[in-house]
Protein backbone atom coordinates (compact mmCIF):
# COMPACT_ATOMS: atom_id res chain seq x y z
CA UNK A 1 0.00 0.00 0.00
CA UNK A 2 1.24 3.49 -0.84
CA UNK A 3 1.22 6.06 1.96
CA UNK A 4 1.85 8.89 -0.52
CA UNK A 5 0.49 8.98 -4.04
CA UNK A 6 1.23 12.07 -6.13
CA UNK A 7 -0.27 12.45 -9.60
CA UNK A 8 0.48 15.15 -12.19
CA UNK A 9 1.47 17.60 -9.48
CA UNK A 10 2.10 21.17 -10.62
CA UNK A 11 2.87 24.31 -8.64
CA UNK A 12 3.19 27.59 -10.45
CA UNK A 13 3.98 31.02 -8.93
CA UNK A 14 3.09 33.47 -11.67
CA UNK A 15 5.57 32.73 -14.47
CA UNK A 16 7.73 30.47 -12.32
CA UNK A 17 7.07 26.76 -12.51
CA UNK A 18 8.27 25.45 -9.14
CA UNK A 19 6.98 21.89 -9.56
CA UNK A 20 6.43 20.63 -13.07
CA UNK A 21 4.01 17.75 -13.43
CA UNK A 22 5.56 15.15 -11.14
CA UNK A 23 4.26 11.69 -10.23
CA UNK A 24 5.60 9.50 -7.48
CA UNK A 25 4.52 7.26 -4.66
CA UNK A 26 5.96 6.21 -1.31
CA UNK A 27 5.16 2.63 -0.26
CA UNK A 28 4.32 1.84 3.33
CA UNK A 29 7.44 1.36 5.45
CA UNK A 30 9.81 2.75 2.81
CA UNK A 31 12.26 5.62 3.08
CA UNK A 32 12.27 7.76 -0.03
CA UNK A 33 14.80 10.53 -0.62
CA UNK A 34 13.99 13.77 -2.37
CA UNK A 35 17.21 15.10 -3.89
CA UNK A 36 17.92 18.20 -5.84
CA UNK A 37 19.79 21.48 -5.80
CA UNK A 38 18.47 24.67 -4.27
CA UNK A 39 15.26 25.67 -6.03
CA UNK A 40 14.71 22.19 -7.46
CA UNK A 41 11.25 22.02 -5.86
CA UNK A 42 11.89 19.82 -2.79
CA UNK A 43 10.50 22.20 -0.17
CA UNK A 44 7.57 23.13 -2.41
CA UNK A 45 6.73 19.44 -2.84
CA UNK A 46 6.94 18.79 0.91
CA UNK A 47 4.82 21.89 1.63
CA UNK A 48 2.12 20.59 -0.71
CA UNK A 49 2.24 17.16 0.93
CA UNK A 50 1.71 18.89 4.29
CA UNK A 51 -1.20 20.97 3.05
CA UNK A 52 0.71 24.22 3.65
CA UNK A 53 0.60 24.97 -0.03
CA UNK A 54 -2.23 24.43 -2.51
CA UNK A 55 -1.12 22.81 -5.79
CA UNK A 56 -1.89 24.59 -9.04
CA UNK A 57 -3.08 21.23 -10.40
CA UNK A 58 -2.70 17.54 -9.78
CA UNK A 59 -3.65 15.28 -6.92
CA UNK A 60 -2.05 14.29 -3.62
CA UNK A 61 -3.26 11.36 -1.58
CA UNK A 62 -1.68 10.80 1.83
CA UNK A 63 -2.55 7.73 3.91
CA UNK A 64 -5.61 7.25 1.73
CA UNK A 65 -6.86 10.83 2.21
CA UNK A 66 -7.22 13.37 -0.58
CA UNK A 67 -5.20 16.38 0.69
CA UNK A 68 -7.42 18.82 -1.20
CA UNK A 69 -10.57 17.73 0.66
CA UNK A 70 -9.58 15.86 3.78
CA UNK A 71 -6.16 17.07 4.84
CA UNK A 72 -6.77 17.14 8.61
CA UNK A 73 -7.47 13.39 8.72
CA UNK A 74 -4.08 12.78 7.10
CA UNK A 75 -2.26 15.41 9.20
CA UNK A 76 -3.30 13.64 12.42
CA UNK A 77 -1.46 10.49 11.25
CA UNK A 78 1.72 12.10 9.92
CA UNK A 79 4.32 14.53 11.22
CA UNK A 80 7.11 16.78 10.08
CA UNK A 81 10.50 18.00 11.21
CA UNK A 82 12.75 20.68 9.81
CA UNK A 83 15.64 22.65 11.31
CA UNK A 84 14.17 25.71 9.58
CA UNK A 85 10.94 25.67 11.60
CA UNK A 86 11.44 26.38 15.29
CA UNK A 87 9.65 25.43 18.43
CA UNK A 88 8.84 28.23 20.92
CA UNK A 89 12.20 29.07 22.49
CA UNK A 90 10.97 30.15 25.92
CA UNK A 91 8.96 27.01 26.53
CA UNK A 92 10.75 24.07 28.09
CA UNK A 93 11.23 20.86 26.13
CA UNK A 94 8.47 19.14 28.12
CA UNK A 95 6.07 22.08 27.62
CA UNK A 96 6.71 22.08 23.87
CA UNK A 97 6.04 18.36 23.66
CA UNK A 98 2.91 18.76 25.78
CA UNK A 99 1.59 21.47 23.39
CA UNK A 100 2.02 19.18 20.40
CA UNK A 101 0.71 16.22 22.36
CA UNK A 102 -2.53 18.17 22.80
CA UNK A 103 -2.60 19.37 19.17
CA UNK A 104 -2.23 15.76 17.97
CA UNK A 105 -4.65 14.47 20.60
CA UNK A 106 -2.08 12.03 22.01
CA UNK A 107 -3.47 9.74 24.73
CA UNK A 108 -1.51 9.45 28.01
CA UNK A 109 0.65 12.33 27.01
CA UNK A 110 3.03 12.35 30.01
CA UNK A 111 3.90 8.68 29.49
CA UNK A 112 4.51 9.35 25.79
CA UNK A 113 6.81 12.30 26.59
CA UNK A 114 8.74 10.21 29.14
CA UNK A 115 9.15 7.39 26.62
CA UNK A 116 10.36 9.71 23.85
CA UNK A 117 12.69 11.49 26.28
CA UNK A 118 14.23 8.18 27.22
CA UNK A 119 14.59 7.00 23.63
CA UNK A 120 16.05 10.26 22.37
CA UNK A 121 18.21 10.91 25.44
CA UNK A 122 16.23 14.02 26.42
CA UNK A 123 15.29 13.21 30.02
CA UNK A 124 17.85 15.60 31.53
CA UNK A 125 16.70 18.35 29.15
CA UNK A 126 12.94 18.20 29.72
CA UNK A 127 12.86 21.28 31.99
CA UNK A 128 15.32 23.31 29.93
CA UNK A 129 13.98 26.10 27.66
CA UNK A 130 14.16 25.00 24.03
CA UNK A 131 16.09 28.16 23.19
CA UNK A 132 18.99 27.17 25.45
CA UNK A 133 19.75 23.89 23.70
CA UNK A 134 22.61 23.10 21.31
CA UNK A 135 21.90 22.38 17.63
CA UNK A 136 22.14 18.63 18.26
CA UNK A 137 19.81 18.78 21.25
CA UNK A 138 17.32 20.89 19.26
CA UNK A 139 17.34 18.29 16.49
CA UNK A 140 16.53 15.56 19.01
CA UNK A 141 13.70 17.68 20.45
CA UNK A 142 12.37 18.35 16.94
CA UNK A 143 12.42 14.60 16.31
CA UNK A 144 10.57 14.00 19.58
CA UNK A 145 7.94 16.53 18.47
CA UNK A 146 7.70 14.79 15.09
CA UNK A 147 7.17 11.41 16.76
CA UNK A 148 4.77 12.56 19.48
CA UNK A 149 1.74 11.12 17.62
CA UNK A 150 3.44 7.86 16.53
CA UNK A 151 3.17 8.95 12.87
CA UNK A 152 2.70 6.47 10.07
CA UNK A 153 4.45 8.91 7.76
CA UNK A 154 7.33 11.21 8.64
CA UNK A 155 8.40 14.11 6.41
CA UNK A 156 11.94 15.22 7.20
CA UNK A 157 13.46 18.30 5.64
CA UNK A 158 17.25 18.12 6.01
CA UNK A 159 17.10 16.47 9.43
CA UNK A 160 20.87 16.55 10.00
CA UNK A 161 21.65 19.98 8.55
CA UNK A 162 24.19 21.88 10.69
CA UNK A 163 24.90 18.88 12.95
CA UNK A 164 28.41 17.65 13.69
CA UNK A 165 29.27 14.25 12.14
CA UNK A 166 28.85 12.38 15.44
CA UNK A 167 25.38 13.79 16.14
CA UNK A 168 24.38 13.38 12.50
CA UNK A 169 25.35 9.72 12.66
CA UNK A 170 23.43 9.31 15.91
CA UNK A 171 20.27 10.73 14.26
CA UNK A 172 20.65 8.50 11.19
CA UNK A 173 21.15 5.40 13.33
CA UNK A 174 18.14 6.33 15.38
CA UNK A 175 15.96 6.86 12.28
CA UNK A 176 17.02 3.47 10.89
CA UNK A 177 16.12 1.78 14.16
CA UNK A 178 12.82 3.64 14.49
CA UNK A 179 11.75 2.70 10.97
CA UNK A 180 12.72 -0.91 11.57
CA UNK A 181 10.69 -1.05 14.78
CA UNK A 182 7.58 0.83 13.68
CA UNK A 183 7.35 0.45 9.91
CA UNK A 184 6.89 4.23 9.59
CA UNK A 185 7.38 5.52 6.04
CA UNK A 186 9.81 8.42 5.66
CA UNK A 187 10.12 11.06 2.96
CA UNK A 188 13.51 12.69 3.36
CA UNK A 189 14.77 15.85 1.67
CA UNK A 190 18.50 16.17 2.12
CA UNK A 191 21.69 17.55 0.63
CA UNK A 192 23.74 14.95 2.45
CA UNK A 193 24.36 12.24 -0.13
CA UNK A 194 25.92 9.79 2.31
CA UNK A 195 22.79 10.09 4.44
CA UNK A 196 20.51 9.45 1.46
CA UNK A 197 22.61 6.49 0.35
CA UNK A 198 22.45 5.00 3.84
CA UNK A 199 18.80 5.62 4.69
CA UNK A 200 16.82 5.57 1.47
CA UNK A 201 15.32 2.65 -0.43
CA UNK A 202 14.43 4.88 -3.34
CA UNK A 203 15.63 8.28 -4.51
CA UNK A 204 13.81 10.92 -6.55
CA UNK A 205 16.18 13.31 -8.32
CA UNK A 206 14.57 16.72 -8.83
CA UNK A 207 15.79 19.42 -11.17
CA UNK A 208 13.91 22.60 -12.04
CA UNK A 209 10.74 21.15 -10.60
CA UNK A 210 10.84 17.89 -12.52
CA UNK A 211 11.80 14.37 -11.54
CA UNK A 212 14.73 13.81 -13.88
CA UNK A 213 15.70 10.38 -12.58
CA UNK A 214 14.86 7.94 -9.84
CA UNK A 215 15.77 4.56 -8.47
CA UNK A 216 17.45 2.89 -5.53
CA UNK A 217 20.84 4.34 -4.54
CA UNK A 218 22.56 1.19 -5.84
CA UNK A 219 20.65 1.39 -9.11
CA UNK A 220 21.59 5.06 -9.62
CA UNK A 221 25.26 4.38 -8.84
CA UNK A 222 25.30 1.55 -11.35
CA UNK A 223 23.53 3.48 -14.07
CA UNK A 224 25.75 6.56 -13.73
CA UNK A 225 28.86 4.39 -13.19
CA UNK A 226 29.78 6.32 -10.07
CA UNK A 227 31.12 5.32 -6.66
CA UNK A 228 29.02 7.67 -4.59
CA UNK A 229 25.71 9.46 -4.85
CA UNK A 230 27.34 12.89 -4.65
CA UNK A 231 28.86 12.36 -8.11
CA UNK A 232 25.50 11.17 -9.42
CA UNK A 233 23.93 14.32 -7.98
CA UNK A 234 26.58 16.50 -9.65
CA UNK A 235 26.17 14.68 -12.96
CA UNK A 236 22.45 15.39 -12.90
CA UNK A 237 22.70 18.92 -11.53
CA UNK A 238 25.31 19.95 -14.10
CA UNK A 239 23.86 17.88 -16.89
CA UNK A 240 27.26 16.31 -17.55
CA UNK A 241 26.61 12.66 -17.00
CA UNK A 242 24.29 10.24 -18.63
CA UNK A 243 22.46 7.32 -17.22
CA UNK A 244 23.14 4.03 -18.91
CA UNK A 245 21.08 0.89 -18.58
CA UNK A 246 22.27 -1.04 -15.52
Amino acid at each position, binding site marked *: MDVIRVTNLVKRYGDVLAVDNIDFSVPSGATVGLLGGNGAGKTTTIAMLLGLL*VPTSGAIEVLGHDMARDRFAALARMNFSSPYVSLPQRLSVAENLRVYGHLYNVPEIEARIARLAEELDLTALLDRPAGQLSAGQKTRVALAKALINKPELLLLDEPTASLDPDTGDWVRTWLERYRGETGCAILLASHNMAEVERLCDHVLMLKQGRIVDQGSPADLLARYRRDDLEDVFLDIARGRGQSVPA
Partner: protein
Amino acid sequence: MNPSLRRIWGLMYRHLVLYRSSWPRLLELAYWPVLQMCIWGFTATFLAQRMGSVAALTGAALIGGVLLWEVTLRSQMGMSISFLEEMWSRNLGHVFVSPLRPWEMIAALIAMSVIRMTVGVVPAIVLAWVLYEHNLLALGPQLVLFFANLMIMGWWVALGVVSLILRHGAGAEPLAWGVLFGLAPFSAVFYPVSVLPVVVQYVSLALPSTHVFEGMRAILLDGTVRWDHLVMALVLNAMWMGGAIWLFSRQFQQARIRGALLSIGE
Protein backbone atom coordinates in the same frame (compact mmCIF):
# COMPACT_ATOMS: atom_id res chain seq x y z
CA MET B 1 -11.83 15.66 26.28
CA ASN B 2 -13.30 16.34 22.85
CA PRO B 3 -10.42 16.34 20.29
CA SER B 4 -11.34 19.79 19.07
CA LEU B 5 -11.40 21.25 22.58
CA ARG B 6 -8.12 19.53 23.33
CA ARG B 7 -6.45 21.16 20.33
CA ILE B 8 -7.82 24.55 21.39
CA TRP B 9 -6.50 23.93 24.90
CA GLY B 10 -3.12 22.87 23.43
CA LEU B 11 -2.66 26.26 21.79
CA MET B 12 -3.92 28.08 24.91
CA TYR B 13 -1.50 26.07 27.07
CA ARG B 14 1.37 27.19 24.81
CA HIS B 15 0.53 30.84 25.56
CA LEU B 16 -0.27 30.35 29.24
CA VAL B 17 3.11 28.75 29.97
CA LEU B 18 4.76 31.55 28.03
CA TYR B 19 3.22 34.11 30.39
CA ARG B 20 4.08 31.99 33.41
CA SER B 21 7.74 32.12 32.46
CA SER B 22 7.88 35.76 31.37
CA TRP B 23 7.00 38.42 33.98
CA PRO B 24 7.64 41.34 31.57
CA ARG B 25 4.85 39.99 29.36
CA LEU B 26 2.53 39.74 32.37
CA LEU B 27 3.43 43.24 33.55
CA GLU B 28 2.85 44.66 30.07
CA LEU B 29 -0.73 43.36 30.11
CA ALA B 30 -1.76 45.66 32.97
CA TYR B 31 0.78 48.46 32.45
CA TRP B 32 -1.04 50.58 29.86
CA PRO B 33 -4.59 50.22 31.26
CA VAL B 34 -3.33 51.25 34.72
CA LEU B 35 -1.31 54.11 33.27
CA GLN B 36 -4.27 55.36 31.26
CA MET B 37 -6.46 55.14 34.35
CA CYS B 38 -3.99 57.24 36.37
CA ILE B 39 -3.72 59.97 33.71
CA TRP B 40 -7.44 60.31 32.91
CA GLY B 41 -8.59 59.62 36.45
CA PHE B 42 -6.55 62.46 37.92
CA THR B 43 -7.60 64.72 35.04
CA ALA B 44 -11.26 63.96 35.83
CA THR B 45 -10.64 64.56 39.56
CA PHE B 46 -9.03 67.92 38.82
CA LEU B 47 -11.95 68.98 36.60
CA ALA B 48 -14.47 67.92 39.24
CA GLN B 49 -12.67 69.93 41.94
CA ARG B 50 -12.50 73.08 39.81
CA MET B 51 -15.85 72.99 38.05
CA GLY B 52 -18.32 71.26 40.29
CA SER B 53 -21.00 68.61 39.77
CA VAL B 54 -21.40 68.81 35.97
CA ALA B 55 -17.68 68.29 35.57
CA ALA B 56 -17.86 65.43 38.11
CA LEU B 57 -20.45 63.68 35.95
CA THR B 58 -18.38 64.33 32.85
CA GLY B 59 -15.38 62.99 34.72
CA ALA B 60 -17.27 59.80 35.58
CA ALA B 61 -18.13 59.37 31.89
CA LEU B 62 -14.49 59.98 31.06
CA ILE B 63 -13.25 57.30 33.48
CA GLY B 64 -15.94 54.88 32.31
CA GLY B 65 -14.93 55.59 28.70
CA VAL B 66 -11.27 54.92 29.45
CA LEU B 67 -12.05 51.63 31.20
CA LEU B 68 -14.44 50.35 28.55
CA TRP B 69 -12.22 51.41 25.64
CA GLU B 70 -9.41 49.40 27.26
CA VAL B 71 -11.71 46.35 27.02
CA THR B 72 -11.80 46.72 23.22
CA LEU B 73 -8.13 47.56 22.97
CA ARG B 74 -6.96 44.68 25.18
CA SER B 75 -9.26 42.18 23.45
CA GLN B 76 -7.94 43.17 20.04
CA MET B 77 -4.31 43.20 21.13
CA GLY B 78 -4.74 39.99 23.10
CA MET B 79 -5.78 38.15 19.96
CA SER B 80 -3.42 39.83 17.49
CA ILE B 81 -0.36 39.55 19.73
CA SER B 82 -1.04 35.89 20.52
CA PHE B 83 -0.92 35.26 16.76
CA LEU B 84 2.22 37.37 16.47
CA GLU B 85 3.87 35.35 19.26
CA GLU B 86 3.51 32.28 17.01
CA MET B 87 4.98 34.20 14.11
CA TRP B 88 7.89 35.61 16.12
CA SER B 89 8.80 32.15 17.41
CA ARG B 90 8.72 30.84 13.81
CA ASN B 91 6.39 28.14 15.05
CA LEU B 92 3.53 28.70 12.61
CA GLY B 93 4.90 26.07 10.23
CA HIS B 94 4.48 23.42 12.91
CA VAL B 95 1.06 24.73 13.98
CA PHE B 96 -0.34 24.82 10.45
CA VAL B 97 0.79 21.25 9.66
CA SER B 98 -0.79 19.89 12.83
CA PRO B 99 -4.46 18.78 12.79
CA LEU B 100 -5.45 22.14 14.35
CA ARG B 101 -8.22 23.61 12.20
CA PRO B 102 -8.10 27.35 11.42
CA TRP B 103 -11.33 27.92 13.37
CA GLU B 104 -9.81 26.13 16.37
CA MET B 105 -6.82 28.44 16.18
CA ILE B 106 -9.19 31.44 16.15
CA ALA B 107 -11.09 29.99 19.14
CA ALA B 108 -7.82 29.60 21.06
CA LEU B 109 -6.78 33.15 20.19
CA ILE B 110 -10.19 34.45 21.37
CA ALA B 111 -9.85 32.54 24.65
CA MET B 112 -6.38 34.03 25.14
CA SER B 113 -7.78 37.46 24.35
CA VAL B 114 -10.39 37.07 27.12
CA ILE B 115 -7.69 36.05 29.59
CA ARG B 116 -5.32 38.84 28.56
CA MET B 117 -8.12 41.42 28.69
CA THR B 118 -9.17 40.30 32.18
CA VAL B 119 -5.62 40.41 33.53
CA GLY B 120 -5.09 43.82 31.94
CA VAL B 121 -8.33 45.62 32.70
CA VAL B 122 -9.32 44.32 36.16
CA PRO B 123 -6.40 46.10 37.92
CA ALA B 124 -7.44 49.36 36.21
CA ILE B 125 -11.07 48.85 37.33
CA VAL B 126 -9.91 48.25 40.91
CA LEU B 127 -7.63 51.29 40.73
CA ALA B 128 -10.52 53.48 39.52
CA TRP B 129 -12.55 52.35 42.52
CA VAL B 130 -9.73 52.83 45.04
CA LEU B 131 -8.38 56.17 43.77
CA TYR B 132 -11.45 57.91 42.35
CA GLU B 133 -14.38 56.03 43.94
CA HIS B 134 -15.51 55.18 40.42
CA ASN B 135 -17.52 51.99 40.57
CA LEU B 136 -17.89 50.58 37.06
CA LEU B 137 -20.45 48.07 38.36
CA ALA B 138 -22.78 51.04 38.97
CA LEU B 139 -23.57 50.82 35.24
CA GLY B 140 -25.77 47.88 36.22
CA PRO B 141 -26.33 44.54 34.49
CA GLN B 142 -25.99 46.26 31.11
CA LEU B 143 -22.27 46.32 31.86
CA VAL B 144 -22.10 42.66 30.80
CA LEU B 145 -23.51 43.57 27.40
CA PHE B 146 -21.16 46.55 27.11
CA PHE B 147 -18.20 44.28 27.84
CA ALA B 148 -19.42 41.57 25.44
CA ASN B 149 -19.93 44.03 22.58
CA LEU B 150 -16.58 45.70 23.06
CA MET B 151 -14.77 42.36 23.27
CA ILE B 152 -16.45 41.14 20.08
CA MET B 153 -15.41 44.35 18.36
CA GLY B 154 -11.83 43.72 19.53
CA TRP B 155 -11.98 40.22 18.03
CA TRP B 156 -13.17 41.20 14.57
CA VAL B 157 -10.65 44.02 14.38
CA ALA B 158 -7.96 41.49 15.41
CA LEU B 159 -9.16 39.03 12.76
CA GLY B 160 -8.80 41.84 10.21
CA VAL B 161 -5.26 42.52 11.45
CA VAL B 162 -4.34 38.80 11.30
CA SER B 163 -5.76 38.66 7.77
CA LEU B 164 -3.58 41.61 6.74
CA ILE B 165 -0.54 39.93 8.32
CA LEU B 166 -1.33 36.79 6.29
CA ARG B 167 -1.53 38.99 3.18
CA HIS B 168 1.38 41.38 3.78
CA GLY B 169 3.57 39.52 6.32
CA ALA B 170 5.58 41.32 8.98
CA GLY B 171 4.94 44.66 7.26
CA ALA B 172 1.41 44.65 8.68
CA GLU B 173 2.62 43.93 12.22
CA PRO B 174 2.38 47.54 13.53
CA LEU B 175 -1.39 47.43 12.89
CA ALA B 176 -1.68 45.12 15.90
CA TRP B 177 -0.82 48.08 18.13
CA GLY B 178 -2.15 51.05 16.18
CA VAL B 179 -5.35 50.12 14.36
CA LEU B 180 -7.80 50.74 17.20
CA PHE B 181 -6.27 54.10 18.07
CA GLY B 182 -7.38 55.12 14.58
CA LEU B 183 -10.96 54.09 15.36
CA ALA B 184 -11.06 55.84 18.76
CA PRO B 185 -11.96 59.32 17.42
CA PHE B 186 -14.99 57.80 15.61
CA SER B 187 -16.08 55.64 18.55
CA ALA B 188 -17.45 58.50 20.68
CA VAL B 189 -15.47 57.21 23.64
CA PHE B 190 -15.09 60.55 25.43
CA TYR B 191 -17.72 62.70 23.73
CA PRO B 192 -21.20 62.13 22.27
CA VAL B 193 -21.50 61.30 18.60
CA SER B 194 -23.53 64.51 18.11
CA VAL B 195 -20.39 66.66 18.40
CA LEU B 196 -18.87 65.03 15.31
CA PRO B 197 -19.40 66.55 11.82
CA VAL B 198 -22.53 65.07 10.23
CA VAL B 199 -20.65 63.07 7.59
CA VAL B 200 -18.36 61.58 10.23
CA GLN B 201 -21.39 60.67 12.34
CA TYR B 202 -22.39 58.09 9.69
CA VAL B 203 -18.96 56.45 10.02
CA SER B 204 -19.19 56.62 13.79
CA LEU B 205 -22.65 55.02 13.94
CA ALA B 206 -21.40 52.09 11.85
CA LEU B 207 -19.11 51.12 14.73
CA PRO B 208 -20.53 48.99 17.59
CA SER B 209 -18.33 50.85 20.07
CA THR B 210 -20.16 54.14 19.38
CA HIS B 211 -23.45 52.58 20.49
CA VAL B 212 -21.87 51.14 23.62
CA PHE B 213 -20.45 54.51 24.68
CA GLU B 214 -23.68 56.33 23.86
CA GLY B 215 -25.43 53.74 26.03
CA MET B 216 -22.91 54.21 28.83
CA ARG B 217 -23.37 57.99 28.84
CA ALA B 218 -27.16 57.59 28.83
CA ILE B 219 -26.93 55.57 32.05
CA LEU B 220 -24.34 57.81 33.73
CA LEU B 221 -25.74 61.22 32.70
CA ASP B 222 -29.49 60.59 32.28
CA GLY B 223 -30.05 57.39 34.27
CA THR B 224 -31.72 55.70 31.29
CA VAL B 225 -30.96 52.40 29.60
CA ARG B 226 -30.76 52.74 25.80
CA TRP B 227 -31.65 49.26 24.58
CA ASP B 228 -31.78 50.55 21.02
CA HIS B 229 -28.06 51.30 21.16
CA LEU B 230 -27.30 47.88 22.68
CA VAL B 231 -29.29 46.04 20.01
CA MET B 232 -27.61 48.12 17.29
CA ALA B 233 -24.19 47.31 18.73
CA LEU B 234 -25.00 43.58 18.63
CA VAL B 235 -26.30 43.73 15.05
CA LEU B 236 -23.26 45.70 13.85
CA ASN B 237 -20.90 43.32 15.63
CA ALA B 238 -22.56 40.35 13.93
CA MET B 239 -22.15 42.02 10.54
CA TRP B 240 -18.53 43.09 11.08
CA MET B 241 -17.62 39.69 12.55
CA GLY B 242 -19.14 37.95 9.52
CA GLY B 243 -17.07 40.18 7.24
CA ALA B 244 -13.90 39.56 9.27
CA ILE B 245 -14.40 35.76 9.17
CA TRP B 246 -14.88 35.92 5.40
CA LEU B 247 -11.73 38.06 5.03
CA PHE B 248 -9.68 35.70 7.24
CA SER B 249 -10.88 32.59 5.39
CA ARG B 250 -10.06 34.17 2.07
CA GLN B 251 -6.62 35.42 3.14
CA PHE B 252 -5.75 32.07 4.75
CA GLN B 253 -6.63 30.25 1.54
CA GLN B 254 -4.75 32.82 -0.55
CA ALA B 255 -1.72 32.40 1.74
CA ARG B 256 -1.85 28.65 1.09
CA ILE B 257 -1.95 29.32 -2.65
CA ARG B 258 0.87 31.90 -2.62
CA GLY B 259 3.05 29.90 -0.24
CA ALA B 260 2.97 32.72 2.31
CA LEU B 261 2.54 30.30 5.22
CA LEU B 262 6.10 29.11 4.53
CA SER B 263 7.65 32.54 4.88
CA ILE B 264 5.29 34.44 7.14
CA GLY B 265 7.18 36.73 9.49
CA GLU B 266 9.87 37.62 6.96
